[in-house]
């Protein structure tokens, strides 16, 4: 199997598709159950369809199969696990995450994610969803920072991905609108803008090398254009089930992946640099509806 370099690893593996379809069948009732509970006047696939109908984009339309599978997105399962986890009293302090503030007051999740990263008074920092969950686990629930619940950031089976997916789903269809009123929010967004354009590393890449034009491909993958809001909202709609990885993935995972492809240094999970990048990339999608959870190559 050739080194694909910048693209997903096993997306061309036919066995993958079989396992996907099995999951899809299982997920059907979940989609219905969660669909009713969450803010699903418009389920994610309809949000995406609305974007597809509004612009001509090779990126948005590149996988008809994914679009068809979205009602049975395996991420919906992960989100359902997250719902349980969120409302369960856990950790040494035996409290649930309902005690945690994601920006709109303790336990309020509706529309919280599309307004992140944001500044939090209690930490004096701009935080993204993942770092805020870490904060909640360690400070509110009392987990040790080395506890697997806190440390394990990746994979559909991780607490992080379950919680992130559940929380993010409460913003499905809503417009990205990360606040920039606080000077720190503005500073982080502006630093992210610089990082986007900053070339470095063995191959001189910045983010625009691959995300500055419409309809361009790296091998078979059509790339999103960061300067087109309709493309970019899908690009940043994480958590998403990545078919090629057979796992639900986060924004942090994507940032790390692109720096890796760029032959630049490994991103530290939740570093301020990663949050600056995410602040800017969210600003780039401002006003566009989020697709949560999404499904990607």
């Amino acid at each position, binding site marked *: 199997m050739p080194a694909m370099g910048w693209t997903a690893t096993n997306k061309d593996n036919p066995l993958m598709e079989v396992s996907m379809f099995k999951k899809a069948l299982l997920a059907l009732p979940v989609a219905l159950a969660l669909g009713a509970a969450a803010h699903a006047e418009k389920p994610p696939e309809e949000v995406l369809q609305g974007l597809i109908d509004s612009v001509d984009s090779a990126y948005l339309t590149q996988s008809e199969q994914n679009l068809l599978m979205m009602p049975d997105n395996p991420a919906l399962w992960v989100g359902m696990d997250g719902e349980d986890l969120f409302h369960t009293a856990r950790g040494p302090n035996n409290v649930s995450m309902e005690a945690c503030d994601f920006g709109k007051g303790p336990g309020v999740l509706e529309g919280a994610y599309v307004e992140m990263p944001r500044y939090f008074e209690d930490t004096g920092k701009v935080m993204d969803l993942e770092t805020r969950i870490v904060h909640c686990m360690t400070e509110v629930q009392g987990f040790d920072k080395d506890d697997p619940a806190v440390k394990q950031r990746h994979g559909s089976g991780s607490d992080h991905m379950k919680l992130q997916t559940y929380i993010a789903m409460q913003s499905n269809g809503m417009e990205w609108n990360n606040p920039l009123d606080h000077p720190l929010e503005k500073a982080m967004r502006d630093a*992210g803008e610089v990082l986007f354009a*900053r070339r470095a590393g063995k*191959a001189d890449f*910045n983010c625009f090398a691959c995300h500055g034009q419409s309809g361009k491909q790296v091998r078979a993958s059509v790339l999103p254009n960061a300067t087109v809001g309709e493309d970019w909202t899908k690009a940043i709609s994480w958590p998403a089930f990545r078919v090629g990885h057979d796992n639900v993935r986060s924004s942090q995972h994507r940032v790390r992946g692109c720096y890796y492809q760029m032959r630049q240094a490994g991103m530290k999970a939740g570093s301020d640099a990663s949050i600056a990048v995410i602040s800017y990339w969210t600003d780039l999608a401002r006003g566009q509806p989020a697709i949560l959870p999404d499904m990607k190559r």
Partner: protein
Amino acid sequence: MFKKTPLAAGVAAFATIIFAGGCAVADADKSGKVDYTAMTPHELAEYLMFEANGGGGFNLSQEVQEGGTARERMQQDELQKACSIIDDGKPDAETLSAIRAAAQESIVYPEGGIKLGDWKKGRELAWSGFGYRIGHNFDDHSKREAGGTCYNCHQLATDRTGGTVGPSLTGYGKTRGTSDAILKYAYDMIYNPHVYFPCTHMPRFGANGMLTEEKIADIMAYMFDPESPVNE
């Protein structure tokens, strides 16, 4: 690698404006906390990269394939600085011509002139995306040689799917011929494409040390050899 050229001088001046060397800018306030809002966006970006989160937002101490650490790799040379403009804009005309001149100077030609190597080797090198990745899944060059990643951005022989970030190179030798001028152009493009396209998004495979002279000759054979499937 970069000689003192007008570019180096101009960019050095530019660099001092945007970022006053090291991270001295990040003065801690009374509480011992660094005030991000007191920095310019460029200062903050450098600070987040190299200083924040206990030694930088990236794993900078990791050793890299070319020797040294990721910290060095993340530092920008003059060209990278000059071509890092918000929204990916282009620098002014003077800087662009300085970039072209510096790129020309960077190019080392093979002794005895530009030659074509083995197109079969070149075919695999052009296809391979392996090499120089670090971080969570380090590319071990002792296990496998670094490739050229050309297919990521270019279509070449059509039996494999290539990218479209760069123009199609299908039939390159067949349509362009193999005159000294076109061979030199292709060699320059692979070695340092900023000669012709200042601030291009194509990597400097020769100048950055990603491809050896021999590998460049093999990839060029893949582009130009009449037997190569690129020219079918």
